[in-house]
């Protein structure tokens, strides 16, 4: 569970070839001549289905992973994935490059829809029970993932996760509940039986570390 904050030092994704790379939270490295995300967004704004098709191929995996992290249901995730890309198509005119990157816009949209979907379908309780079971059975599941070595991670993911992995588990957990579950500070406090002030501190410290870590990587690169 969690932010999939599951990379551990020394795993293959920390190979030397991944250390001198790219902006974190950046788009994947594109083939020469491939349209940028921004070009694709402009294409969608001009109602070019091919632009949506390329954007879908580029990001459906990440968007679906995000949805699954929220709702834990494959069929519902597929339905939402389709709805979200339809919303991207329908709402593309609202995207402004001045306010951020296309991926950030899509992720914000997808997260909101997934959390809304979670609540509307009254799956919250069931997902919460699953989450609780996972947490109880594998309290550090996001720190150690059994399939980790079988997965080839992208450079971007390695860098992002390296930043996230520096956080104490309690901070990761608080951020996970807030970001992927849409929980308020009070809800997190109740769920984790932790004082509200402690939850707030964990969120503030954790998010600052992530923000600073990502910024430091951007500055270095």
């Amino acid at each position, binding site marked *: 569970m969690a*932010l*999939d*904050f599951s990379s551990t030092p020394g795993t293959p994704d920390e190979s030397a070839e991944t250390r001198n790379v790219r902006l*974190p*939270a*950046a788009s994947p490295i594109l083939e020469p001549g491939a349209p940028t995300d921004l070009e694709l967004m402009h294409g969608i704004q001009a*109602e070019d*289905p091919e632009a*949506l*098709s390329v954007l*879908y*191929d580029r990001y*459906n*995996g*990440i*968007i*679906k*992973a*995000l949805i699954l*992290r929220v709702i834990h249901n494959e069929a519902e*995730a*597929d339905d939402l*994935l*389709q709805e979200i*890309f*339809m919303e991207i*198509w329908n709402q593309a005119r609202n995207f402004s490059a001045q*306010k*951020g990157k296309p*991926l*950030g816009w899509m*992720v*914000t949209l*997808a*997260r909101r829809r997934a959390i809304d979907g979670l609540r509307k379908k009254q799956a919250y309780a069931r997902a919460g029970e699953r989450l609780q079971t996972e947490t109880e059975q594998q309290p550090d599941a996001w720190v150690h993932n059994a399939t980790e070595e079988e997965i080839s*991670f*992208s450079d*971007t*993911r390695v860098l*992002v*996760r390296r*930043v*996230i992995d520096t956080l104490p588990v309690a901070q990761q957990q608080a951020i996970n509940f*807030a*970001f*992927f579950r*849409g*929980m*308020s*500070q*009070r809800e997190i406090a109740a769920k984790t039986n932790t004082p509200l002030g402690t939850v*707030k501190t964990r*969120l*503030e410290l954790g*998010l*600052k570390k*992530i*923000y600073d870590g*990502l*910024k430091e990587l951007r500055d270095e690169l």
Partner: protein
Amino acid sequence: MSFDEFQNQARLYVIGALEPEELEAFEQARKDFGQKAEDFVGECYSMHEAFALSLRPAKSSDALKDRLMSMVRNRQKP
């Protein structure tokens, strides 16, 4: 509210974790700090990308994409 405090709250705000009673003061500080605040909030949204990119991509069926593209093309028809 100092700008440091505003920054802390902005990071909570972008993930929707500000409590209702904190929102009013945050929005007021956002207005008071002006463009500097807007720029910072914009930067904070990069964390959304980071969280998503920390996940392993999940697979989707080709049929799902076919349905999506069919819907899109149907909507284009006059």
